[in-house]
């Protein structure tokens, strides 16, 4: 499609708008190299940057390996074998997704740190010199993030194995492989694109993570951006750090696109439940125990601890301030969910009406914000809006009675733009898959049946798309509730949310007082998992 025709198509214009929202913060951040702040940059370069790079590298390698190990092994077990409790475990192993990584982090430290109940108990029993690994360490962060993020790999690996694993294994066995070597020579390579897809999501979450590493005082780019902005008050230096992070993320994104292009959807096989390999004896119990152990550490234990803490501080913390946090959280999440769902709908229509060419690319750009860390978006959007504020409003000042700085101060616009950009993909996917159920021939057939365009929207489009739109809104709603860095860095004064409250309490080491908002977030986080499993069951 030519550019001029594109500009006349309202759907393409919508795609252009949302793509611009993604591109502007990236370009703003990248352009910060044009005017480097010498002294701050010098300081960062000499004292911080090397550490940041090493820390990031270890984190990426560690969390990548950890989630692969957990996700692939659990996915293989639950997809191909049968063992006691498999049915429930297969679903329950997704539950850790409900706990934001930063919540898991502070619960973990609270439990296992020197002053925590576990070490206290050990000292009680074995004496005060009992050795225990240091929790606030590189290993600790990696362990916590692996346990919090493995479900991404698990989900995709399990589905890949479930549709093709058993048959691949049988083919390998018929060619003389043992079950063990069949897994490595056939099943694993076949599932590789899906596993890689899950891994990429994990690594993007890892790079974007702000809350977890803050709790552990483990310096990465995200915390450095925050500290440079709010500690050293240098937005320019923060932008430069953000631009480095963007480069790393983009490298990952290129890898992801490569792995995606090799993903071919095989016939979504209806895997028969009775077609699994039944494990017996110690193997069966070993499998159950392993899955149960992961579930206990990653979900049950932290949940119990959170509830206990929350119960302890309930009388003190369940007050009007809590409702203030909750109110802000729900309000922001609600507005962001509606905006994102509308945006996703516009994008999905744009993609449907222009299946090729420029518009398609714009839609892809508009939905790539999930790869951009919240800290980067916060900086990029803030700088862009500040520029608008300075230049545009000064021009308008003679005409309208607003002062420069009005747009920034006391405006939630930056936050909302940040949410919409970051979570557009989350909203777009369910709307787009609903749109896929509606091929263009459906429009044609409605017209041959004597139905006008408007009636067709009401009788055909609305009912088919409704489910996807609602799902999109709910998923975005929950993600915004849990979102930390954008909210923390760009909220107007007085707009504290549950996530901000958790950040403030945990940075003072008051784990108990972070528990009540954390429990609220975990409960909200369970909603998408129920959606996910319902969708999964429909496929079966």
């Amino acid at each position, binding site marked *: 499609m030519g550019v001029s025709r594109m500009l006349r198509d309202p759907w393409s214009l919508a795609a252009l708008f949302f793509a611009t929202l993604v591109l502007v913060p990236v370009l703003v951040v990248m352009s910060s190299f044009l005017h480097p702040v010498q002294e701050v940059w010098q300081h960062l370069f000499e004292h911080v940057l090397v550490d940041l790079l090493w820390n990031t590298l270890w984190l990426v390698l560690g969390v990548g390996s950890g989630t692969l190990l957990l996700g692939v092994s659990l996915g293989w077990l639950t997809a191909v074998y049968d063992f006691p409790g498999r049915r429930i475990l297969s679903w329950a192993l997704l539950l850790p997704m409900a706990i934001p990584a930063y919540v898991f982090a502070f619960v973990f430290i609270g439990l296992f740190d020197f002053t925590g109940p576990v070490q206290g108990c050990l000292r009680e029993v074995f004496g005060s010199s009992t050795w225990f690994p240091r929790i606030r360490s590189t290993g600790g962060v990696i362990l916590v993030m692996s346990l919090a993020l493995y479900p991404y790999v698990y989900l995709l690996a399990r589905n890949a194995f479930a549709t093709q694993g058993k048959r691949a294994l049988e083919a390998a066995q018929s060619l003389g492989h043992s079950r063990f070597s069949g897994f490595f020579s056939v099943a694993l390579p076949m599932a590789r694109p899906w596993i890689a897809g899950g891994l990429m999501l994990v690594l993007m979450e890892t790079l974007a993570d702000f809350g977890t590493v803050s709790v552990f005082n483990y310096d990465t780019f995200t915390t450095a951006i925050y500290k440079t902005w709010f500690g050293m008050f240098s937005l320019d230096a923060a932008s430069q750090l953000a631009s480095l992070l963007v480069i790393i993320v983009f490298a990952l994104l290129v890898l992801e696109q490569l792995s995606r292009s090799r993903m071919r959807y095989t016939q979504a096989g209806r895997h028969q439940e009775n077609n699994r390999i039944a494990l017996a004896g110690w193997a069966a119990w070993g499998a159950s125990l392993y899955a149960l152990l992961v579930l206990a550490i990653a979900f049950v234990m932290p949940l119990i601890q959170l509830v206990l803490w929350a119960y302890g501080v309930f009388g003190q913390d369940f007050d009007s301030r809590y409702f203030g946090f909750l109110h802000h959280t729900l309000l922001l999440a609600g507005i962001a969910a509606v905006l994102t769902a509308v945006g996703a709908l516009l994008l999905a229509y744009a993609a449907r009406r222009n299946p090729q060419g420029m518009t398609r690319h714009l839609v892809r750009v508009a939905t790539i914000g999930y790869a951009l860390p919240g800290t980067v978006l916060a900086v990029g959007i803030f700088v862009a809006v500040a520029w608008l504020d300075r230049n545009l409003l000064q021009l308008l000042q003679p005409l309208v009675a607003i002062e420069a700085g009005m747009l920034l101060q006391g405006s939630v616009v930056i936050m909302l733009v940040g949410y919409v950009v970051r979570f557009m993909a989350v909203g777009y996917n369910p709307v787009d898959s609903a749109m896929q159920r509606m*091929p263009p*021939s459906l429009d*044609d057939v409605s017209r041959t049946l004597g139905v006008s365009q408007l009636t067709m929207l009401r009788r055909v489009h609305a009912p088919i798309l409704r489910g996807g739109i609602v799902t999109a809104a709910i998923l975005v709603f929950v993600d915004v509730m849990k979102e930390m860095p954008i909210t923390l860095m760009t909220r107007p004064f007085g707009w504290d949310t549950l996530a901000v409250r958790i950040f403030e309490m945990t940075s003072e080491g008051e784990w108990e007082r972070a528990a009540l908002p954390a429990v609220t977030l975990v409960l909200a986080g369970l909603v998408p998992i129920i959606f996910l499993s319902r969708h999964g069951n429909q496929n079966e």
Partner: protein
Amino acid sequence: MNNKVLLELNNISQAYGDLRVVNHLTLRLDRGQIGCLLGPSGCGKTTVLRLIAGFERLTAGEIKLNGVEVATPAFSLPTEKRRIGMVFQDYALFPHLNVFENTAFGLHQLAKAERAQRAMEMLEVVGLADAAKKYPHELSGGQQQRVAVARALAPSPDLLLLDEPFSNLDSDLRERLSQEIREVLKSQNATAILVTHDQHEAFAMADEIGVMHEGVIQQWDTAYNLYHQPNSRFVADFVGKGVLIDGKVTEPSRVMTDLGGMACDLPSGVKVGEAVDILLRPDDIIHDDASELQAAVVHKAFQGADILYTLKLDTGRQVLSLVPSHHNHKLGEKIGIRLEIDHVIAFGKP
């Protein structure tokens, strides 16, 4: 105005940029007839259908339904006002509606009771009354197809358009269903146009068939005539099997070939002494042990009741022969053959 004619396409054209998809095509279809546009993919047949439906705009010519102009380059009656029904290649059933609701979709102008009655009546006709409460994804391909037909016929359209309606079905079902759908259409006295690339489908469904090539109808005729009296090399080649052999005009209506001399209507402009191509269908060559004319078996394809032999004459020329399958000969074996042609078709050399 001729009351018998339902659909008229007068000299219609359609082009995307420089690409002419439909090229001055003319066609007439009588009420109650089932017509078919048959052609290879890319010949423009689907575009003709979409022009009749009103999904595309004409660049030249006019379309009349019931003697009323519905489309010219300047004017296009909206699809929903043309009183046509359409069955799509992918069936396009509404996934959120059950079979009954799908069938009743186009009956919105009727009162509720009438609507239900008419929808059930149509489901009875296609034999799916029992499946009324099922959803499209619970049906087999053939059942989905029948729902699509019932839905399209329910509002009693003047004209039904079928776009490659059987291409998603396996060949066994395709044949059975095309006959079934023909009976349904005939029972409703419907007028229809079918588009397909499959000649068996066309033969099974249609009263008249137009073979399309490069945006024009090469020949509009019955299946019998398309096979036995093709008017062009393209039609001869596209419809049925056969070979062209060299012939030489010896007398004003006689041609000499490797298989002997034969009487033949010559194409216009061909004179005595000139070379022509003679079309030989597999059923024109009969196996006859008593015949002096012998040919060697080069290839054989067992087809159940018949065997299709590829035979090599002493001159080196190859011909096809359809022989009852109990005459089972080995490769290389020489068998006797004889010509039996009612009407010899000759084409001038290109």
